[in-house]
């Protein structure tokens, strides 16, 4: 875990981001339509579309467009949304905060729930509790978010029970209760698969550690079971859990797209879908850049955490 290693990793991340944004850009150029066409729709005469393209800067050749975008980024200017006529930084920034709060809540609640679940399952391996947790994990891991979301909406937010709002968003600054009631369903949807993955991983690692010589020795020493688990088994099982959590950040970044769309949560996912539909290139670029950076950084951070937690890796 040297400084050199970190620097190399960061450089690799930057290289990747450049390649990704360029690829996104190149692909959009191949598309038949563009933002101007989407804005005017069927009311766009050829002249009107051409005029709008000029205004939006879409008539310039692709490399000019790309390089002016890169130049802008380097000076902190992410450009104007083609569709919304607002600065991309504002639009994406707001959306990012909303997504981050949703993802953050999902991740935190999952970690609080999933790790104990996994531990429970490992300790009670082979019993009914283990089976129940196992079944729940499999079901959770097999349902795509849109299925979970739809079923949750159907049962909890539908006219029959009407327990929770069927989507929408209330800012935390406006009302804590409102924010909470609107965040429950989307966070649960996101959390289901995560809980399944993480608890299974913890269970499998814990089981392995529990049957290892190291633990057997601790038990032979006469230590109480609880102390054995807390002080000896748990720390060694957590490293893979952290690895899974970081992998799941990647899943979260994908899952958030569908969940936000279904629950009308004004985050990056929903914005991305909107931008893709409307060929709003600067917004697509900014979001892709942001998500790829978050993912790369989270991988890096989890690698560091694993190294700290698990001495075996540190000296590898």
């Amino acid at each position, binding site marked *: 875990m040297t400084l050199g290693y970190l620097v190399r990793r960061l450089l690799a991340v930057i290289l990747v981001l450049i390649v990704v944004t360029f690829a996104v850009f190149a692909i959009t150029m191949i598309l038949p*339509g563009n933002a101007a066409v989407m804005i005017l*729709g069927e009311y766009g005469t050829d002249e009107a579309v051409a005029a709008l393209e000029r205004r939006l800067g879409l008539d310039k050749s692709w490399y000019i467009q790309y390089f002016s975008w890169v130049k802008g980024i380097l000076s902190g200017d992410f450009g104007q949304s083609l569709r919304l*006529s*607002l600065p991309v930084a504002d639009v994406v920034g707001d959306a990012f905060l909303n997504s981050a709060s949703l993802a953050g809540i999902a991740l935190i609640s999952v970690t609080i729930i999933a790790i104990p679940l996994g531990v429970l399952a490992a300790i009670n391996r082979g019993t009914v509790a283990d089976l129940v947790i196992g079944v729940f994990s499999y079901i959770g891991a097999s349902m795509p978010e849109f299925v979970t979301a739809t079923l949750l909406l159907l049962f909890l937010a539908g006219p029959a029970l009407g327990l929770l*709002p*069927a989507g929408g968003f209330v800012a935390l600054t406006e009302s804590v209760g409102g924010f909470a009631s609107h965040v429950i369903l989307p966070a649960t949807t996101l959390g289901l698969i995560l809980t399944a993955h993480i608890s299974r991983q913890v269970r499998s690692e814990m089981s392995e550690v529990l049957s290892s010589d190291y633990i057997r020795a601790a038990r032979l020493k006469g230590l109480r079971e609880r102390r054995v688990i807390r002080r000896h088994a748990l720390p060694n099982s957590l490293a893979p859990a952290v690895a899974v959590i970081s992998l799941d950040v990647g899943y979260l970044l994908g899952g958030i797209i569908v969940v936000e769309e279904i629950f*009308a949560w004004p985050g990056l996912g929903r914005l991305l879908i*909107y931008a893709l*539909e409307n060929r709003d290139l600067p917004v697509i670029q900014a979001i892709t850049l942001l998500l790829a950076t978050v993912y790369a950084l989270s991988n890096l951070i989890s690698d560091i955490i694993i190294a700290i937690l698990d001495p075996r890796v540190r000296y590898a």
Partner: protein
Amino acid sequence: MFIFNILRRNVLLCMALALALPTFVAAQSNGGTLKISHSTRIATLNPLSLSGPAEYPVIDMAYSGLTRIGPDSQPMPDLAKSWEGSPDATEFTFHLREGVTFHDGTPATSSDVVATYEAILNPDIPSSALSVLNMIDSVEAVDDLTVKFTLSSPFADFPTSTAHANARIISEEALSGDLTKLDTVVNGTGPFKMESYDSARVTRLVRNDNYFSEGKPYLDAVEMHLFPDLAAETTNFLSGDIDVMLLVQQADYARISSTSGINALRVPSGRYVNVVMRFDQPPFDNLKVREALAYAIDRQLLVDLVLEGLGRPGHDNILSPEFKFRIDTPKKNYDPAKAKALLAEAGYPDGISLDLVASNRPAIRAQVAIAIKQMALPAGFDIKVETMPHDTYIANVWKKGNFYMAYWGMQPTEDATFNLLLTSNASYEDTGWKNAKFDELVNAGRSTTIEAERAAAYSEAQELMLKELPYIIPFYEDVLTASKDHVKGYSINPINRYFYLENVWLEKE
């Protein structure tokens, strides 16, 4: 004599009370915020070029046009208090109201009107109203409150054109500056002015205290809330505090209208889906093939399945029954045998394979396409439905393709309807049907103000259209909206561009 006077006085008193009573009962209360939910983004506030269903209410609230289409589908005064046209319908003069100011306080005068129309007519500025205003030769400000239009050809419906939802009056100052500001900055003469605009969530407008219609608007503020997911929007409307749901989906209408406390509105409209069949390419260059398809479609079934019964079957007349000059249209019943025979006559005794393109926006195109595919099967039509993203459709298929689904809202006049799509030089002409006789008839209809002559011209035009069958128009879709019971005065125009929110008030509990 004396008694008679007393009686008469009492009668008069009673009459006065009787007249006052309804007004007393119906007296609206001022104040409150109206919350409207919608499912498509308000992407721009530029009145010249916007076209989103949720954007129209916003500019209907914030801007005024010279005229405006009223609930009876006739032009009514808006910024112009009166107008007159020359007998040959080539010159129109509009008289503006006095003392009207923009939201920023600057006076609204004829120079703003002139600037607006010049922008609309400017080919370099995208404007959706151009297609109904392209007969304007010149527009001049006679004095501060009078505007004169000179047309290059007679057009009797000109005051309807000036009511076009994208022909709202913008200040000269805004038009001489950076036009991109129009996308986000609103400065109009309408009953409400913009307070905050967040296209991702809520757009809020507040009362314009200087609105030219005395006493209106009644509301303090209007908020537009975005719910991109229709299921979430519906559920939220039913159980939350949204007052009006702008557009209701057919699938939800029954559920919403049967919920207590909710007033679901269904307005018959001339909105239609049309099947475009290209005239200058096989196989639709053969009239019999077009007719065959027309008989291979069960129109009532389409209304039942796709519209959930919330519409009326159409029989290929582009004008719906609401239009004044519409003729009685003969019904085409679902007759696969006849369709098959017609195909055989056209040279396809074993049926025909076709690709039908449907863009993914709105979803109704694909639904109708799928239904048509099934219904036309027994007649020998083997139709493959191809869906595609909307911009690909616009770039590659629209106005070029052989066979595709189009979708149009209702236009205010017969002339606008015909000139939108069917005349040879229509802006969005997409079937290749260039019929000189039809053009002549449409022209004749617009050039005179004599009703009988217009009726004759338009009748003949419709008969020609029905005979040649450029489009199959299987139904007219109703406009569906809903409001809570405490919302009073809310109505919607079948053209779906005018919302009269200055008439809405909220009943206090």
